[in-house]
C-alpha cells in the first residue's frame, strides 16, 4: 500500500561510497522517496531517539523504513537493532538489513534482534538498482505499514 506522501527512509551506512551508490540507485529509480543518511550506528540511534542535532522531528521525521548496515565501528547494526526493537515508539518500524555478509551467524543474530528482512549488498550497480527497486516495490508499496 503506497503511502500518500513521500516515504522517509533512514539509511544507516558508514561507508561513504556505499552511501553514494545507494543514493544514486534510489535517484535512478525515481520513486521520490526521501532518504536520510546516518553515518554509523550511534548517529542512527541519535536520529531515531530524536536526540542532539536530530531533535527536530519536522526536519528529521521517524522513517517508514530503515536500511541498516551491520559492520560499523563502535556501535554496529546489531546494537542499533537491540536499541530500537525494545522501544514501543520504534519497534514497529520495518528494518531491512543491508549487509555484505552472507554469514549464518550474522543472519541469525539479525533476525534474533528483530530485523524484518535481510538483504546482501550486491557487488554490481545493476544489482543495487534491482535491490532498491524491490525494496520500494515490497516495503513501500505492497507491504501494509504498521500503525504508528
Amino acid at each position, binding site marked *: 500500500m503506497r503511502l500518500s506522501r513521500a516515504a522517509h527512509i533512514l539509511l544507516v551506512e558508514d561507508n561513504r561510497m556505499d552511501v553514494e*551508490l545507494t543514493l544514486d540507485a534510489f535517484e535512478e529509480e525515481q520513486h521520490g522517496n526521501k532518504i536520510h543518511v546516518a553515518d554509523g550506528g550511534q548517529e542512527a540511534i541519535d536520529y531515531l531517539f530524536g536526540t542532539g542535532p536530530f531533535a527536530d522531528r519536522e526536519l528529521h521525521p521517524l522513517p517508514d523504513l530503515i536500511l541498516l548496515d551491520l559492520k560499523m565501528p563502535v556501535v554496529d547494526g546489531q546494537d542499533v537493532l537491540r536499541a530500537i526493537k525494545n522501544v514501543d515508539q520504534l519497534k514497529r518500524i520495518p528494518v531491512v538489513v543491508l549487509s555484505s555478509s552472507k554469514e549464518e551467524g550474522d543472519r541469525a543474530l539479525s533476525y534474533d534482534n528483530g530485523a524484518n528482512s535481510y538483504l546482501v549488498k550486491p557487488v554490481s*550497480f545493476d544489482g*543495487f538498482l534491482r535491490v532498491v527497486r524491490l525494496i520500494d516495490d515490497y516495503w513501500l508499496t505492497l507491504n501494509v505499514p504498521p500503525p504508528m
Partner: protein
Amino acid sequence: MQSSSDRWHATLFPSESRPVVSQGHVIQVTELEAKVEERTTELAHRTAQLEQRTHQLEAFSYSVSHDLRAPLRAITGFAEILSSRYRGALDEKGRHFLDNILEASEHMSRLIEDMLSYSRLGRAAIAVKATSLEDVLDVIGRNLQAHAAQLGVTITVAKDLPEVLADRTLLSQIFSNLLDNAVTYRRSDVPATVEVSWIADGDDVVIRVADNGIGIDAKHFDRIFEVFQRLHGQDEYAGTGIGLSVVRKAAEMLGGSVAVYSALGVGTTFEVRLKRAGDASEVGCSAAAPAFDER
C-alpha cells in the same frame, strides 16, 4: 582400550602378553615407552597448534575477503555508472580501459566469493544427515540450465539418485563446482556433454561427473586440488583456481573422497565417494538419463 605402551609391547613381543626378560631389557623397554609417550604428547601438542593456526588462517582469509568486498563494490559500481551514463564521452581507448576495469573487477568478485566459500568450509557448522542428491542436483541443474544451453552443453543426470549422508550446503558446493568446471572446460570441436551417474559400492555411493572436454594431463592430478592452482590462463578459460579445492575439502569433511580420471582431448571424470544414507546393503546403480530441459 590398548595404551600406546601396550601396543609397543605387543609389537616387540608378539607371542607373550608380558616379556620375561633380563633387567637390562626391561630398562630399555621402559625407556622406549617413555620416549613413545613423550613423542605422542609432542605430536598431540603440534596437532593442536596446527589446528589453531588453520582456524586463524581461515578466519583471516574470511575477514580479508569480506573487507575487500566494500572497495570492490565501489570500483564495480562506479565503473558501471561510468559505462552506462558517460560511455559516449570517452574515446575508443577510454572505453577500452573502462571495459578492462569492469572485466578485472568481475574476476576479483569471483575470486573473493570463492575465497569466502573456501574459508567458510573450515568454520561453518555442518549438519550431516540423509540428504537427497536428486534435490541438490535438481537445484544446481536449474541454476546452470540457461548458461549451459547458451553454450550448447548437454547435461544429463541419472535418475533415482540415492540419498547420501551429507551436509546439504557442502554437497551443493561439491557438485556445483564440478558441473561448472565440466561446462567451462569444453572442447570447441565437439558438442559438449556432461553426464552425472552413480553406482553403489558397499556402504558408499560413488557419483561420477563425466565430460568430453579438454581433459587434464595426469601429471597435474594432484595439483588441480590445491588452492589457487590453475592450468590455463584467464583469457583462455575463466576461473579462480579454488573450485576443486572446495570440492576436495567438502568431500573430506563429509568423510568421503574425490578422485579424477582424465585423458587430454578426450574428457574428464570426477568420482565423489560418499556414505550412503539408510539401508546401505541395497546395491544398485543407475544409467544416466536426460534430466535437464536443454531448450
